[in-house]
């Protein structure tokens, strides 16, 4: 194909050029403001534990996992437009694999976590391959019911699953608490820390920083993939698969890759989750009715902005903050209904998600970048002319377009 020979036409060693370009982009002083703000946010996350007691660390740690899950959804659904309504399936495959290996086969999480990640990747293949043939609503249905089927399997093989899980999958309660990665001295954790209170402190910090490191790693990997030409191909698939084929690119391969990458990331996060701050159980991982977590992930991505990778992180923060703020209002009673504001959860969040969908389908990230640009422009005395490119058509708008085309096809076929 074209690239290799064409690059040499322009002269210059391209791999050296690429490396230089990558390095240039990583210089914080040269970055656009929004990247600098992003770096500042990361610094904030690094420093956060200095402001909290160990027993307050659980929520922020959990939040980091939610971010990973939301990013993993975004790379397949936000970028390629293949909507998944059951992404928690991958988190559960990763988490359960590692937990069962630990509890019933005596395999350390250090090995179990990568195995869980791989198995989730296999799950990605198993869903990604049929997804190539399934159009819009059919894919939605399949992804929606896959985690439900998984939860039924947990119940069906409650007491025993020959060879794989001799003691069973534990039904609604889960298989039990697996070995923790970090714990106080004598707790049997993989890495035993100090004794007593300082051990608890260290455990909370270790869990937090492990999650933060993992989140950043996943962020970097997904940014690298989506900002390389593969990301352009993903978004092109969302727009028009024929155009992708006409460019000599195998759309199926890229779609499958997005699914597997997403599954691997979700599986990794899910596996680490159960060895740090989450108990493996259908309610813990899949959520209410076995679909809540999957929907939460979508809500976070929509809040922050789909098809951006960074958006879901911001969406997750909004998600968590709203829970904290609303949860803090336990003394404020709504008159007439006689319900504390705190007990309204998750109604305000759902309302915010609805409002975002209707009024700012690009998500708060894009809305704020646009707002920021307008402010900068007016500070310079210029007129802000709107997004030169890409800003007008939100990723969600394109997913919608793709879906609509597929729906039309289905409707037309029926007639």
């Amino acid at each position, binding site marked *: 194909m074209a690239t290799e020979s064409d690059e040499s036409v322009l002269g210059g060693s391209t791999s050296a050029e690429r490396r230089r370009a990558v390095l240039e982009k990583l210089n914080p002083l040269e970055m656009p403001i929004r990247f600098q703000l992003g770096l500042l946010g990361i610094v904030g996350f690094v420093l956060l534990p200095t402001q909290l007691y160990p027993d307050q660390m659980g929520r922020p740690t959990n939040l980091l996992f939610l971010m990973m899950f939301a990013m993993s959804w975004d790379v397949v659904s936000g970028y390629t437009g293949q909507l998944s309504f059951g992404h928690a399936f991958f988190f559960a495959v990763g988490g359960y694999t590692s937990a069962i290996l630990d509890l019933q086969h005596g395999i350390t999480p250090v090995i179990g976590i990568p195995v869980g990640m791989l198995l989730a990747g296999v799950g990605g293949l198993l869903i990604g391959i049929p997804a190539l043939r399934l159009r819009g609503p059919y894919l939605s249905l399949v992804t929606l019911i896959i985690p439900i089927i998984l939860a039924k399997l947990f119940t069906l093989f409650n007491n025993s699953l020959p060879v794989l899980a001799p003691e069973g999958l534990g039904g609604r309660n889960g298989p039990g608490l697996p070995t923790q990665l970090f714990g106080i001295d004598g707790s049997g954790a993989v890495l035993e820390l100090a004794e007593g209170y300082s051990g608890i402190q260290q455990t909370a910090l270790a869990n937090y920083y492990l999650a933060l490191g993992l989140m950043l790693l996943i962020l970097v990997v997904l940014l690298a993939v989506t900002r390389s030409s593969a990301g352009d191909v993903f978004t092109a698939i969302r727009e028009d698969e024929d155009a992708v084929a006409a460019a000599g690119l195998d759309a199926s391969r890229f779609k499958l890759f997005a699914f597997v990458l997403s599954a691997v990331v979700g599986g990794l996060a899910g596996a680490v989750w159960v060895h740090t701050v989450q108990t493996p159980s259908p309610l813990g991982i899949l959520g209410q009715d076995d679909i809540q977590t999957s929907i939460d992930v979508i809500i976070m991505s929509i809040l922050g902005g789909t098809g951006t990778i960074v958006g879901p992180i911001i969406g997750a923060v909004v998600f968590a903050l709203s829970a904290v703020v609303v949860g803090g209002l336990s003394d404020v009673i709504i008159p007439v209904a006689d319900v504390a504001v705190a007990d309204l959860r998750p109604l305000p969040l759902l309302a915010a998600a609805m409002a975002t969908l209707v009024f700012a389908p690009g998500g708060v990230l894009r809305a704020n970048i646009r707002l920021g640009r307008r402010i900068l422009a007016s500070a310079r005395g210029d007129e802000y002319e709107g997004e030169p490119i890409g800003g007008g058509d939100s990723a969600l708008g394109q997913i919608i377009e793709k879906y609509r085309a597929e729906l039309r096809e289905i409707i037309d076929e*029926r007639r």
Partner: protein
Amino acid sequence: MTSAANVIVTAISISSLYAIIAIGFTLIFGVGGVLNFSHGALITIGAEASYLLSNPTNLGLHPALGLVGGMVTAAVVGAILYLGVVQFVEDEPVTLLILTFIIGFFIQHACRVFITGTSDFSVDQVTPGETTIAGVTLFDIDIFIFVLAAVLIAATGVFVSRTKTGKAILAVSMSEKGAAVVGIDARKINLITWLLASAFAGIAGVLLTMKQTGAWSMGTQPLILAFSIVILGGLGSIKGSVVGAYIIGFTETITTSYISSSLQGFTALVLLIVLLLVKPEGLFGREAA
């Protein structure tokens, strides 16, 4: 072995409920192109309303009034949904899909927060008691559900094929443009469809509560089954929905009765996945309209 007759009766009664839920779901899709994921919440609404009306700890009215009240409440909420939200984003199926999903969660959580909390609730049956026919003892509620559903399904059939409004619904479902040409107000047709579908969901919610118990999240599973049924029977097809409902209902009842009760909601979904993998365009995709 519980008598085969009993299993069949249960299967028929459950399938009938699924059928009226699925018909509403498919009508809304056919007419507006909307996959309405808040349909399950309308089931909950119907159930909660009947609980408020006819549970002895509340108003304690006759269960029949609870049934009517559940139907009306669900219909009103459905109409509000259409007029207040759906009609503004009608042209954006994915936004609408996710939006109706979130609305559904919102409504169910609101029911939990404001009405029944997390505990199960019950309402008295319209027709308590049992009847023995040819040595088989049947719950009257099952007979009632079957008869009512059959009447509703038949009435829907007559409605869309005989009445002017019903024919208009079919016309809109065939093509909005065509409907506009013959002077049909698509918005009005949509509203009627939402009223009808929501009323059906409300009735199903009350009947489900009478047959079993109700809970704030009770709508989710029927929603997923209705979606499955509709995909199975062909999106937008009324006939297909009824057939699909009976296939799913019978599969479900027979496997849970004869193999294991833990298979509840499992076999039907697995069956559906397998079907979709073999025939990605749905069972009756093309033929049934």
